[in-house]
């Protein structure tokens, strides 16, 4: 980038232009606001003091966005009711102008869209409003009334007045980001995306350990209530601070340490992680700077959980939440989730089920917050779960924020922050707690299905290939006939391996019974296998309804019959004459045995399913949708 120089018309100091397109800049020596004309610089005013900053970004820093090199050439600081944010002006190497929004270390790069077409009026937009744009669906995340409080460096436009304007932020599910700026007569549109610190590849930053010198403003004061020293850990962004000694909430923005709220409660909650503690999570160093307890009321009971606000100068903020020994590591979302069902949201390809909607209030607060926090503050929250993750939405003061939490164990938190002793033991089941009993469940399901398929395949193969008929003979029976009703069949040969033999008896019994003594006699060795079977069949009409009982046929399977020559001796007893047919089949599959094995295979799988299901029942018992009957817990 070519650097051009000029001199300040007010003090004569050297003015270096980092970006050729700059329209306005500020003199670093006398703080004059200078507008660039064709031939000279014109002084149009003087900037107010730039508020203290802990950001490592500074004018002159370089970076790249999607492969396009840029230099940070200017900055506008905006202030709104709940705090401040910076818009860093980026001068790209190709001459383009862009903006890096730095709102409490949440970053977004955007570019002015010159011909954007019609835009909705600001009063038509509310947090949660959805808009179709650029072939995608955007959602209004914030509607902010703000004004600029300071500028520095080079800007692509001239100085403007400092009255309040409306800024509307839009977010798409894929992280795309837009701002509609209503500060001008015609609204301006900026399109871009939310980015991470590492995506910007920044160099030439303020030194990482030089936070004190970066912060030029108030970094500490005494509590106006109890006089205890309050040292701000995040003076750039802290809006409220609750005194760690007396709990008084103090305004940290004005420098006057104004009391916003006195702590009148009797219950003091001691943070398990002391404020100021450093810990390492996701490869970055975080410091606990704020702590609040929030409470919701359901069915006459108060449920309280605790939130620890963690801060990293580059990575921004994240939270650790704790309820009954269950911890979640929570980070704000870059995009917004999409509704994928009546009670479902999808984010990053993952579906979350609605768990609970509840209004919570802040019941205790300590330390610093980059937004206004006071006792009794209420927000409406909606939680969606896909263990071990949980999507949470909070609605308050025209702002809708989404975050995603991931369940972490107390041990992991203790390790991350180097805390002494043991974490509190978890009680009960938490909303996004992974189901420990699901370990191996998918595996056993697969193993069971494969075994069952093998079993069914084997059964079908047996049924289709086995069970061939060896002989079939017809006989008659007359009570009191010769040989006591006993007959012998013709000889038949059973070949192949030792296997079973099925004898089927079909009769023409009609409202009667017959008993069959069967002896399968080995014609060669003089041995016999003897079994008996009764056949009975009755039917009739009873009060106009027909009925029947029993069957005209019966069968018996004789196990383990070696090959050889055989005949059947059939002794019959019956009350009435009858005809009957005897059919002998060889190697008949035992379908009952297949069914028994199927049940035995299923028992471990069923036992394995019961444990996780009871866990899910316990999980959802705390939700707006308690489980009552069938399982739908397939999210392991």
């Amino acid at each position: 980038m070519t650097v051009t120089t000029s001199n300040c018309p007010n003090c004569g100091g050297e003015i270096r232009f980092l970006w050729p397109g700059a329209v306005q800049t500020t003199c670093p020596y006398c703080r004059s606001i200078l507008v660039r004309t064709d031939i000279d610089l014109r002084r149009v005013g003087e900037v107010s003091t730039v508020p203290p900053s802990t950001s490592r970004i500074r004018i002159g820093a370089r970076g790249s966005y999607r492969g396009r090199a840029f230099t940070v050439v200017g900055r506008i600081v905006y202030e709104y009711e709940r705090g401040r944010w910076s818009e860093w002006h980026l001068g790209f190497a190709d001459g383009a102008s862009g903006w890096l929004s730095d709102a409490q270390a949440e970053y977004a790069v955007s570019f002015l869209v010159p011909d954007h077409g019609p835009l909705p009026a600001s009063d038509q937009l509310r947090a949660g409003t959805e808009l179709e744009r650029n072939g995608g669906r955007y959602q209004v995340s914030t509607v902010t009334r703000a004004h600029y409080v300071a500028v520095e460096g080079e800007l692509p436009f001239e100085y403007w007045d400092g009255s309040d304007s409306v800024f509307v932020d839009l977010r798409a599910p894929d992280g795309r980001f837009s701002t509609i700026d209503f500060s001008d007569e015609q609204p301006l549109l900026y399109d871009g995306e939310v980015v991470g610190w590492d995506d910007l590849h920044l160099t030439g930053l303020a030194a990482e350990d030089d936070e004190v010198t970066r912060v030029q403003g108030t970094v500490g004061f005494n509590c106006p209530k109890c006089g205890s020293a309050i040292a701000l850990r995040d003076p750039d962004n802290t809006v409220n601070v609750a005194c760690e000694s007396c709990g008084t909430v103090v305004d940290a923005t004005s420098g006057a340490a104004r009391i916003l709220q006195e702590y009148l409660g009797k219950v003091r909650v001691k943070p398990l992680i002391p404020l100021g503690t450093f810990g390492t999570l996701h490869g970055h160093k975080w410091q606990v700077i704020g702590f609040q307890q929030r409470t919701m009321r359901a069915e006459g009971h108060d449920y309280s959980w605790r939130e620890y606000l963690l801060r990293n100068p580059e990575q921004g903020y994240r939270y650790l939440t704790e309820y009954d020994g269950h911890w979640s590591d929570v980070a704000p979302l870059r995009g917004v989730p999409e509704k994928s069902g009546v009670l479902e949201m999808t984010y990053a390809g993952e579906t979350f089920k609605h768990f609970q909607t509840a209004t919570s209030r802040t019941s205790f607060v300590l330390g610093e917050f980059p937004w206004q926090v006071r006792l009794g503050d209420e927000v409406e929250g909606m939680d969606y779960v896909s263990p071990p993750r949980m999507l949470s939405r909070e609605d308050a003061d025209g702002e809708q924020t989404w975050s995603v939490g991931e369940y972490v164990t107390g041990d992991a938190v203790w390790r991350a922050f180097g805390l002494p002793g043991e974490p509190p033991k978890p009680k009960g089941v938490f909303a996004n707690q992974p189901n420990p009993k699901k370990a191996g469940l998918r595996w056993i399901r697969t193993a069971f299905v494969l075994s069952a398929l093998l079993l069914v395949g084997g059964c079908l193969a047996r049924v289709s290939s086995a069970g061939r008929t060896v002989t079939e003979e017809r006989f008659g029976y007359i009570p009191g006939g010769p040989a006591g009703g006993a007959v012998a069949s013709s000889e038949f040969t059973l070949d192949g391996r030792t296997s079973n033999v099925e004898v089927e008896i079909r009769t023409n019994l009609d409202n009667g019974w017959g008993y069959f003594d069967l002896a399968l006699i080995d014609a060669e060795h003089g041995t016999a296998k003897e079994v008996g079977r009764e056949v009975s069949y009755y039917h009739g009409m009873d009060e106009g309804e027909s009925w029947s009982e029993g069957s005209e046929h019966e069968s018996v399977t004789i196990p383990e019959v070696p090959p050889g020559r055989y005949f059947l001796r059939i002794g019959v007893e019956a009350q009435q004459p009858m005809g009957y047919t005897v059919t002998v089949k060889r190697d008949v599959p035992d379908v009952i045995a297949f069914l028994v094995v199927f049940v035995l295979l299923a028992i471990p799988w069923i036992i394995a399913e019961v444990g996780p299901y009871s866990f899910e029942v316990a999980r959802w018992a705390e939700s707006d949708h308690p489980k009552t009957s069938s399982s739908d817990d397939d999210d392991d």
Partner: protein
Amino acid sequence: MRRILYVLYAAGLLGALGWTEYRGWGTEPTTEAKDVPRSVRNNPGAYRPHYFYGSGRYLHGK
């Protein structure tokens, strides 16, 4: 460990079933008789199953 146990359990069940089917094993109680006279075919009324008198067979009827 539970996975191995289930594999062994399933393999054992399927193997036992396969062997049972191959050998024609069954649960039907049969009475084994030896030295059955070869003349039974000619005079089946002369042969009585071994349990015919002793076991008190139950004769059903409506």
